Each structure stands twice: as C-alpha cells, then as structure tokens.
C-alpha cells in the first residue's frame, strides 16, 4: 500500500470547483468534516449541488450552527438533495423563496442511491415512498406481487468525509454514530477527501477493522490543523 497525500483544509477546499456535485458526510453535524467545510466557506465557491443527509443545524443570530449550515446560509449551493432540512430554517426559507432548489429524498432511499452509485448499480427498488409525493415522476417496477419505486444512482464529483482515524494509505475507521453516511459518500464520488483526527502508520490498523478501504480515499486532511 502506498501513502496518499496529506493536504491542508484550504488546499482541500480548492479542489472543489464551481458547479460540482458535493457529497458531504454527517448527520445533523455529527461526523461532518468541519475543517474542510470551514475552508470551503472561506473560499466561497458557489453553484454547488449538495448531497447530504440534512443541512445541519442553523442557529440564526449567534445560535449554535454546525456542518454545512453556514455554507447554505452563504448561498454556496444552488441545489440541495437531502432527507431533512428541519433544523436549518435558512434552507427552508431559501426553498420557499425559490432561491435554492431543494430535493427531499427519504433517508434510506438517499443512502441506497448513493450506495448504488458507488457499487456500480443501475438503481435500487424500494417500497419507501409509494403512495406519497416522493413517488411523483418515478418509474414503478413489479417484482412478483410487490410494487417498488425505481430509485436512480446519485454519484458525485467530490466527497468530503470525516473519520476518526486513518493510516497513511487512507484506510479509515469511524467513531460511533459519526459514521452514518461517510462510508457511502466515499464510494460514490470521483474524488474523496477525508478529514481525520488521528493518523497512524500503514499496518497499524487491524485489517479486520477497516471501515472504508484505502482505495476509495484520495487525500487526507488533519482535523484541527489550519
């Protein structure tokens, strides 16, 4: 296994170009790559499509904010694909005002669409959303006596993910519920940047306990380093 480059957060943010589709790990800010997101906020790249479970927590007027919330507020995303925007009133405002296109996707369907993109599948069949607005405009497939919605893969240009620990080859381990969408995002994007808290030498992570194999990861960024 060969070491992969370790770059700083602003160099990572520079790899994200206007108009790209960006997959970001995290669940209401838990397990989100905060250092890279802060650098991307400072850089101000716009016209991005965000694929993320949610738009994190936005506390206006100095309240607690986390994850991608500040990037939403700065209007860096022209399109948001997420399952939940309820803890970010600014996303809801932009959606209702027609300023940002927001596509709401059931959480399990979002996970499988991202996974399908990473696994080379042409889509997935799910009963989730049948008989609801989530079924509008989607194909239906009957298998045996059951009807399913056809949900299409959701690939991306760049994944920004967060892990607890990496070795220099880019093998990753996550921590507790900070895992969430991170391994899925890592599989589905052309370029994958992982922000990590600890770096160890190649061979120091037990191969039985690697969560994301190194071949998915292109760059490492150390968390907490400016």
């Amino acid at each position, binding site marked *: 296994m060969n070491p992969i480059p370790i770059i700083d957060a602003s160099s990572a943010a520079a790899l994200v170009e206007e108009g790209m589709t960006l997959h970001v790990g995290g669940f*209401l800010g838990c397990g989100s790559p905060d250092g890279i997101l802060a650098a991307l906020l400072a850089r101000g790249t716009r016209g991005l499509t965000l694929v993320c479970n949610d738009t994190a927590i936005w506390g206006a007027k100095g309240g607690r904010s986390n994850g991608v919330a500040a990037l939403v507020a700065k209007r860096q995303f022209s399109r948001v694909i997420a399952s*939940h925007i309820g803890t970010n009133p600014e996303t*809801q405002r932009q959606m209702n005002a027609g300023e940002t296109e927001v596509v709401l996707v059931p*959480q399990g369907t979002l996970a499988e669409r991202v996974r399908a993109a990473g696994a080379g599948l042409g889509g997935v069949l799910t*009963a989730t959303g049948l008989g609801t*607005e989530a079924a509008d405009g989607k194909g239906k497939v009957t298998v045996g006596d059951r009807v399913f919605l056809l949900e299409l893969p959701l690939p991306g240009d760049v994944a920004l993910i967060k892990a607890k620990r990496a070795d220099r080859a880019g093998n990753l381990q996550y921590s507790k*519920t900070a895992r969430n969408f991170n391994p899925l995002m890592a599989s589905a994007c052309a370029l994958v940047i992982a922000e990590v808290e600890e770096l160890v030498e190649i061979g120091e992570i037990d191969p039985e306990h690697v969560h994301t194999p190194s071949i998915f990861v292109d760059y490492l960024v150390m968390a907490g380093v400016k």
Partner: protein
Amino acid sequence: MIEYLENKEIIARRIARIFKAGDVVNLGIGLPTLVANYLPEGVTVVLQSENGMLGLGPAPVPGQGDKDLTNAGAAPVTILPGGCFFDSATSFGIIRGGHVDYTALGVLEVDQEGNLANYKIPGKMVPGMGGAMDLVAGSRIVIAATTHFEKSGAAKLKRRCGLPLTAAHEVDLVVTDVGYFEVMGGAFRLLEWFAPYTPEWIRERTDADIEVMSGCRRSDIE
C-alpha cells in the same frame, strides 16, 4: 361535562406496555422518545436509532456526552452493552428489511385507512421526511403516537388525511391521550379508553369512523 387536558405521559406509558422483551423498536424524536422512560420492569427492548446504532441507551450525565454519539435528533446519548454501530445503508437495511418490530412516531394527521401525514405542511412547515418514510414503510408494526386534538380542537384522527402523506396504509396502532386504537377495516377500532373520557365522548368529538369493539375496556393507566 368532560374537559380535555393534553397528556403526553399517558400516551408514552400505554405504548411502553405494547412491547415484549427482545423487540426491536425505533422511537421517533419528541413524544415517542418518552416511551423509553416507562418500559415495564423486566421488559428489555432493543432500541434502534436510524443514524446508525442498536442498543440506544439513556442520555449521558450532563457534561459527559461524546460528540460522536448522538441520537437521530442530535441529542447526546449512550450505548448499552451489546449494542453496535453501523452506517446509514445498514441502518435502513435493518428498517426496510422488516427487522424493526415496532416504530412509534408522531403525526400531524392519521386516517382510518392507515394513512399517515407527519412531514410537511405545504408552504408553511417543510422539515423533510428524514427517515420517517422508510420507518413507516419498513417496520412490521407502526404506532402513531399523538395527542388526540390539535390546538384548534380538531381531532388529528381523520377520515382522510388532507396533508401530504408520509406513507399509505401502513399505520397499525394509534395511541392518543384519550384512547388506544387499532386501524383495521377502514375504521379506528377502540381497544381501550382513558378515564375520564368515554367511548361515546371520543366518538362525538372525532370526525372519523370509530368502532367500539366488544372487548373494549377502560384502561387501568391513571
């Protein structure tokens, strides 16, 4: 004259009695989360949290929370011995694959056909469905947990939901602060009522088909 008083605790207490030891249960954020406080002695259920864990434990001692360990509402939690973590695809595989026995979640409206609306009021409140559509479509038994009335006084139990649906024909049980219902045959079947309300009072104030079953009884929960 019976006066209605909102009572979330009685809903949580009644739902807590539905489970048996070993059931895998997902409790939605808000009122359903309270259910965990009222599980009967000796009934250990396995709580699933859709952000990626089984064996969800109580909140940590204040100040002892772990930034990497939260529930699906971003609140700090703990994990019980024997619990485990997994990614979101595995989590929803558990949910969609029918491995969750019960999901209890809040509603804006529930109707007598088992339709549920809880994620959107067009033009007003659009938080998104999060995991609710998968949970309601995938769990074996779906429990709608809700106060019986809106602030306006209208019952949340309807003949037909008017709001966008979270799922069609998936609700099995409804527990409110006036009674415990089964949704079957195009009606709410009253199984238990909570004093001081009565079956007659509940039927008068709910614009939906409510059948009072022969075994229907007054709950012993006070």
